[in-house]
């Protein structure tokens, strides 16, 4: 009876989610199987194209690199923030969240100024005599990864601070009192307990990177085309909505696969946490 009441209470929200989130995605995917060429012809065309495979592989690489770097930076920062006294913690959190107050385009544009031929970094290196000629940093995969890490690290920090704060000090002290060194305490107590936050953060960053459009467009252009840019091109320029839907479907499947993989890894790291 209790269970039935729970379902009843949850049904309006479930209905909203299904109608506004799940059905549009399903409708998009269904169109890819109803083409005159047969149910899988659009997928055959997608995976048959060397260029599209390159774009897919590049998108996975960039997203994974962004996720790993954001995890490392985000975890270290969140750890420091969570162990800081109250007033400093507030200042650090505000500083971490500050970039989120501006738009993605503005934050990506900032990197154009930093990494450009006449940008801050090249000018500094030239003035210091480290380089003789400006380095080509823009419109490379590296530039896209740097900008995306900058975009997503605040999100990672916010996700992890709450998780790290929730780890009781007693556990850390107990570990120390039982003779564990700080490294051992970190590896065997703190890190496993932070796994749920790491997984949530990693999923958020990976999916955000995997589907991003503005940053790859601005800092990578055609040379570093990613799935979002390719999908936009197919939908808005070539007007091939079936090809765009196929790209969307491939992105959905890969995102789900990566999330499942991460969950599995998390379960291995900490069977209790996930």
């Amino acid at each position, binding site marked *: 009876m209790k269970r039935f009441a729970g379902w009843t209470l949850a049904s309006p929200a479930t209905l909203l989610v299904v109608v506004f989130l799940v059905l549009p995605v399903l409708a998009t995917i269904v169109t890819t199987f109803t083409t005159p060429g047969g149910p899988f012809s659009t997928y055959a065309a997608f995976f048959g194209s060397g*260029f599209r495979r*390159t774009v897919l592989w590049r998108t996975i690489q960039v997203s994974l690199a962004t996720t790993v770097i954001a995890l490392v930076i985000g975890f270290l920062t969140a750890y420091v923030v969570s162990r800081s006294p109250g007033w400093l913690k507030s200042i650090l959190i505000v500083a971490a969240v500050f970039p989120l107050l501006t738009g993605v385009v503005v934050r990506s544009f900032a990197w*154009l100024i930093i990494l450009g031929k006449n940008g801050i970094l090249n000018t500094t290196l030239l003035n210091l005599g480290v380089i003789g000629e400006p380095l080509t940093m*823009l419109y490379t995969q590296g530039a896209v990864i740097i900008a995306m890490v900058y975009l997503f690290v605040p999100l990672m920090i916010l996700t992890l601070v709450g998780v790290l704060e929730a780890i009781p000090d007693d556990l850390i002290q107990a570990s120390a009192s039982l003779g564990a060194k700080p490294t051992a305490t970190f590896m065997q107590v703190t890190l496993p307990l932070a796994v749920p936050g790491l997984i949530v953060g990693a999923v958020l960053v990976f999916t955000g990177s995997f589907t991003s459009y503005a940053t790859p467009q601005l800092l990578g252009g*055609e*040379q570093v*085309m990613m799935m979002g840019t*390719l999908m936009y091109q197919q939908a*808005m*320029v070539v007007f091939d909505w079936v090809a765009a839907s196929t790209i969307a479907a491939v992105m959905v499947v890969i995102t789900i696969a990566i999330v499942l993989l991460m969950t599995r890894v998390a379960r291995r790291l900490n069977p209790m946490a996930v």
Partner: protein
Amino acid sequence: MKKLAATALALSATALLSAAPAMAQGKTLTISWWGFNGEKLEAIVLAPFREQCGCEIVFETGNNGERLNKIQIRNGAGVDVAYFSDSFSQQGIEAGLFQKIDPAKLPNLAGIYELARDPQGGYGPAYTIGRVGIVYDSAKVTTPIASWNDLWREDLAASLSLPGITTTAGPMVVMKAGEHQGVDAFADADGAFAGVEALKPNVVKNYNTGSEMINLFSTGEISAAIAQDFTLGQIQAAVPSVVWAELGEGSIATLNTVNIPTGAAEPELAYQFINLILSPEIQQQLAEQGVDAPVNTSVTLTPEQAALWTYGADLIAGLQRIDYVKMNAAKSGWVDRWNEIFGM
């Protein structure tokens, strides 16, 4: 009796004319356009038209592709006047989204250049004309660029930006690459793309919007680009040494057209609006205030005012035209081939 009849006729005509705004009261004209120069267009075009029609005006804004997609999804409905560059309006025509124009309802057509009156076989006229050519920073490119073939010069290595294949001017690069290789891009895409491939070492980044290209100039990333002339003023504001190349083969004409979609709710208002924007008075003001180049032959500009525009019968007569039917048919395949060169 005759006098009475004439008076009655005059009174009726006056009543009809004065009733015209009242009849349009409560009506709404929906315009799909880019959204640039909103304040100037409000003052020069919209306010006078609102006064003339007594109607409301609402807008749909966005780039060509986004807006054409919306009209296509609505099967030609939702908009009464649609502004598009000619490559996109041609796609709309081919998709059956625009209705044929009745020239009798546009008296101001008679006053515009022949080129602009009926550029796409019975559909909307062009209200402005531009050109695609080459701009370069004369402080960095010391040997002037005088031909499309100069794009392949070695001294332009890693200093060029091309319009992306998804922009209005992008497919024109393929055509020019074909000419450089001595082939027709439509008949021999392999040959044309060999020319594009050969151009790649000179390319820093391809741009998708005019502002992106201006940024590339202002940050020193590039010193030459294929561009549309409406961007020249802004580029020169950022980098004064940038000049428009005088190309021996001539620049390429680009027309911005206005069409009435098949599902337009207020086609008569749309005709009135299109007629207004083709009028000498409006065209003169738009050109003087830096909004659009004029197509009305009676517009007269000072050399300073005309400097940025595709202006004057001689210049317009020297422009190259594009066969957009052929180009749009080839575009899908060209996009993939272009991506393979620049995106691999």
